Structure formats: C-alpha cells, structure tokens
C-alpha cells in the first residue's frame, strides 16, 4: 500500500507548445478544439508526417549572458519561462524561502542533441573533429536544460534532469515531492522541455510509430504519433505556506519490466502507476472527474492504456488525449499535460481529444470527442515511456469554503 502524500500547491504554472505561447493561448486553442499540428517543414527533414512546432523558437536567441547554453531546446525553455509571469513567481518564491531552498527538477528526452546532429555535418574533413563552437555541456548534455533554467532563475538549490523518455516530466513531480517531504527544499520548479530534432523524428519513423496524418488518439484507425515540442513549468510549494487552490495530490511510478519500446499488452505497469497515484492521493476511482490519457495514438499504447484504465478506474470516467492538439511532446508531455489538467481544474472544463473521428470500440473508455463543461475537482494525468517507465499524477482543487 502506497503511503498518502502531503499535497503540494501549484503556485505558478505555464505552458508553451504548438497551441501557442502561455496559458491563454493554450486554453483558447483547447476550447476551440484546434490542433497545432502541421505538415513537417522542420530543418532538412524529409518525412511525410505532421509535427507540432512552436513558432519563433529559432528567432528567439538567448540573452548574451547565456550564450554557453545556446541551443533550440534552451531557447524553447527561455520562451516558456517568460510566459504567464512564471519567472517572476519563482523569483518571489526564492526571495521568500531563499534561492538555495528552491530545487529544479526538469524532464527532457533529447535536450540540445539537435546541436550535435548539426555539428556532425560540420566535421573537419581531415581530422573528423567537431566544429570549435560546438558546446557539449551547455547544448548536448541532458542536464543542460536544468543548468540553464537554474541559472536563468538565479537559483542555487539542488537540480536534476529526469530523462526517462516520455514519462520524464511527469516523474519530476514525484521526485520534487519527495525532496520537499524530506525537507531538502522548500519549493521546486518542475517541468519539461523537449524540442524537435532529427533523432526523434527519424527514430520514431524507424520504429514505424509515426503517422502520416495528424495523430488520432483512441481512433479505430489510429496509426501512430505526431511529434511535437513544448516547454511547460510549474512551481510547487507546501500549501501551508501559501494561499493555494490547485494541488498536486498523488503520484504513482512503476516499471513494465517487459520491453524496451513496446508497452506491456495488458497495461500492467500503467495500471500499477494509476493505482499507486490513487492510494497516494487517498482517493478512489470514483473521485476522478477527468483523465488526461497518455494516448499517443499508436495502436499498442492506446490499447494497453485503455485496458489499464478500465481495470483501475472503470469505463465511465471521461478522458481524452490532448496529443491530437499538441502532438506528442515526448519528454515535455508529462508537464504539458499536467498544466492542461491544471487548466481543466481552474476552468471546470474537460478538453476534447481532437482529430479522432470514431473511437475504437475495442477501447473500453469514455473518450471525450467534445469539450465537456462541469465541475472538475480531481484529475489524473498518465505518462508512459520507452523502457517501460510509467508515471501517473493526480491533481485537485480545494472546494469553496474547505
């Protein structure tokens, strides 16, 4: 039995994806059932697919003092931090608790690998050396994202990147929660940033997991993912310290121990993560008003997830995958979808899954094809990754007067 966790307050949050920069644009796009996916015109990529590209990333260089961190991924992070007053919220928090008491826990799958991919085209013909200007630490390295964000926010506390493919930036919430509970820190910047690169575009293509159309989660005709990019952040603090309405209530993590790139067919690990999240939140399946599915739109993911959801929560709870709108933002998906869940709670609004024409009758879930208004008190967000890494999060809000 998983122990009950102490709830944490989300005292700031923001998201930037192909739906737009910041919360207003994101919410407006979700309400309008808009998709940000468009035919792939990224870099020199020649693939018949749709991507969720954030406009303007290439034209938003980092301030000169951060030149060591210059890469597309950190540009996207910088763009994301600038939205919704998020950086200012962190500064206020750091002024209150101390910059060394604010941790940084971020997820990414590929960090600034695009810089390395490009550098390999520019190798010296004679020696094979990479260009002099190529920076390993600030661009290529997986930690580059957290190092940059920590420095940009002038924080000096513990920092780490979690990189477990598509569960990365869900798992940061669990890790930050533990660090807060252990007293290591008093606040945490959590989030995820992943950006388009050739490794993931050609890699998922090599596994035949990419759709030629905008992805159609839970559709009977679903045939793969659309890759997106995003930067999403949240600030977590103990609720006794702040006036809190939105809360992280539960976390669950598990491993499939089954296959490197395919989910367990019965959703064994996914179900275990969801059950743990419920136990850690002290809730039952009936308490969950909305599920944000991992819902990648590969035949195997959606089937395995639907089985796990039906087994743990039954088939009535409304749910959707927002990847039809945003694309699969990989290491940023957990954080992006956590922010979408926070919007659902704040606005009593359950977003439809777009692009899905006919829900697969074999998937026994209540899949929302239209936006659903209604009181939203508790939501679950699922994130599953390569290597069988599963994470389920539960968010909630305080009722009026409670």
């Amino acid at each position, binding site marked *: 039995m998983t122990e009950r966790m102490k709830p944490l307050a989300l005292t700031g949050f923001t998201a930037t994806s192909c739906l737009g920069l910041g919360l207003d644009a994101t919410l407006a796009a979700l309400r309008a059932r808009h998709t940000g996916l468009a035919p792939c015109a990224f870099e020199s990529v020649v693939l018949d697919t749709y991507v969720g590209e954030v406009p303007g990333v290439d034209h938003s260089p980092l301030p000169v003092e951060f030149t060591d961190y210059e890469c597309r991924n950190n540009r996207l992070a910088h763009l994301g931090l600038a939205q919704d007053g998020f950086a200012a919220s962190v500064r206020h928090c750091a002024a209150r608790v101390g910059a060394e008491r604010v941790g940084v826990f971020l997820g990414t799958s590929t960090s600034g690998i695009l810089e390395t991919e490009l550098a390999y085209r520019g190798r010296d013909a004679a020696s094979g050396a*990479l260009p002099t200007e190529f920076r390993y630490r600030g661009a290529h390295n*997986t930690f580059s994202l957290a*190092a940059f964000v920590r420095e940009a926010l002038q924080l000096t506390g513990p920092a780490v990147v979690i990189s*477990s493919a598509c569960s990365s930036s869900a798992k940061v919430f669990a890790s930050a929660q533990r660090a807060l509970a*252990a007293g290591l820190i008093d606040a945490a910047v959590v989030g995820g940033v992943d950006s388009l690169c050739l490794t993931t575009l050609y*890699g998922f293509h*090599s*596994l035949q997991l990419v759709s030629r159309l905008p992805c159609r989660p839970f559709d009977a005709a679903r045939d793969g993912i659309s890759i997106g990019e995003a930067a999403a952040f949240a600030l977590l603090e103990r609720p006794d310290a702040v006036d809190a309405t939105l809360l992280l209530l539960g976390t669950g993590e598990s491993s499939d*121990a089954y296959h*490197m790139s395919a989910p367990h067919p019965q959703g064994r690990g996914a179900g275990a993560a969801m059950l743990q999240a419920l136990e850690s939140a002290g809730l039952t399946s009936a308490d969950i008003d909305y599920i944000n599915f991992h819902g990648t739109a590969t035949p195997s993911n959606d089937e395995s997830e639907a089985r796990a959801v039906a087994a743990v929560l039954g088939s009535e709870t409304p749910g959707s995958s927002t990847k039809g709108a945003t694309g699969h933002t990989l290491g940023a998906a957990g954080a992006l979808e956590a922010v979408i869940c926070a919007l659902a709670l704040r606005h009593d609004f359950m977003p439809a899954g777009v692009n899905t024409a006919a829900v697969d009758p074999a998937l026994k879930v209540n899949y929302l094809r239209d936006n659903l208004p209604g009181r939203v008190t508790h939501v679950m967000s699922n994130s599953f990754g390569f290597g069988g890494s599963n994470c389920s999060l539960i968010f909630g809000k305080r009722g009026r007067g409670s």
Partner: protein
Amino acid sequence: MTLTACVNGVGLLGPGISNWPHGLQILRGEVPYAAAPTVLPVPACLPSAERRRTGAIVRLALAVGLEATTNAAADPAMLPAVFSSSGGDGANCHEICQVLAGTERALSPTRFHNSVHNAASGYWGIATGATAASNALCAFDASFGAGLLEALAQVQVEHTAVLLIAYDANYPEPLYSKRPIPDAFGVALVLAPATGATTLARLSVTLSDTAAARMPQPALETLRAAIPAARSLPLLAGLARRATRDVVIDYLGPKNLALRIEPCP
C-alpha cells in the same frame, strides 16, 4: 536537513577495479591501484536477443547493480531503482549522429530505443523483473550526488530500500574531444531505512559549502576527477575504513554533499 540511510551492499567496476572486494583492498591500501582498461562482463541475466543489443553503458550498470544487490542479499526484483549517468550511451549517440549527418538517415530502431537516457533502467527491468519505480537522472558532473540525494529522499520518504546505480562510459571521437571521459566507471549502493545482516555503515548526508575531498593516492584522484561517477570514491573510501568518518563529496556548485559514515554494526 539531514538525509540518512544504511548502506547494505556495494557494487563497483572501473578502470583497474574489478569489483567491490577488489576495490576494498585498493581503498584500504592492501593492494596498489594499477590503472587498466575497464573490463565489462556480458550480462548473462538478459535474454540473448536483448543481450546482443546492449552496449557498454548498459553492461556496466547491470554489472554493478547485480553485484550490489547480491552483496546486500536483496532481491533485485523488489527494489525501486535510481539510475544516474552524466551522459548515457556515447557510442550509440555517435552512431546515430553519423547516420543523421548523411542523406539516407536510415536509423536502426535498436539504436534509437537504446538512445534513451533510461536504457539501462529498461534493460534492468527486463533482466530482473523489477516493476517498482525506476528513475533515470542526469546532472552532468554532479550526477552521482544527484542520484544519491534522490535515492536517500526515497529511502526517507517512502520507507523503502532503494538501489542507486551511478555509471559513466567514454564517448568515441569526435565527441571524446568535447567530453573527455577516459573509461567506464560504475558504482551501485543498496540503501535501506534500517540496518540488516549485510549493513556496512549508516550514512548521513547534508548540503555543504565545504570543498570536496580529494583522494590521497594520485592515481585514484585522477580517476575521481576524470569520471563523474568516480566522484563517489571518497564515500567508498569511507566505507572501506572501519571507523566513523566525515567526508565531503562533489555535488552541484555552489553546494557539495557532507557525509558522515558510521560503520555498522
């Protein structure tokens, strides 16, 4: 704020260090340290199809993880795990970047799924059947300290034993010139909330502004400074002693980790 745990088992593999008993002899000064290329065992615990797909980094992580759980008399299937690596599989990354720099760009699916930073964690689950939480961390040169903090927080908050595996392997050229990690080094610790039959020491950890300790032996100091996972060496040297010891290890500037190591029983 102090995080504490009992060290119930250790696994170790590196250049000129073949396992934890060998490492103990070196760290106690019973045998001299002689640098030599790291010898990585083939992971017999994996099915043959998966075994063929593993590179150095996965073999390293599995080897030290299994040694630590064996020494701790712990069932690896039952332990949550924390994997921490400063860079993951450099050889695989090099192959992918070479293919992507060409015009064909026909990436191998195995290369792609091995490129995830949590590849070792995935293979570990397949090898041992471990279905508990598994984390895959990176903090550049601070990766050992970051892994230790995550593992200790899990021990303390979840009241469970945790397996920490910190591991790094070398990049081939041309990446080696940009990130000169000379060889493979891995360390694994089974950390538990309470003492058991195999407990070596109780470990208490706080964040500190004190400078990190250096290894007194020059060759071991070279190793400590060269490979991020080897920043654990002062901790391992403390475990090798049979007396209470305070030591500071490298973490993330401006903070290091101050450790108190108290032998058990």
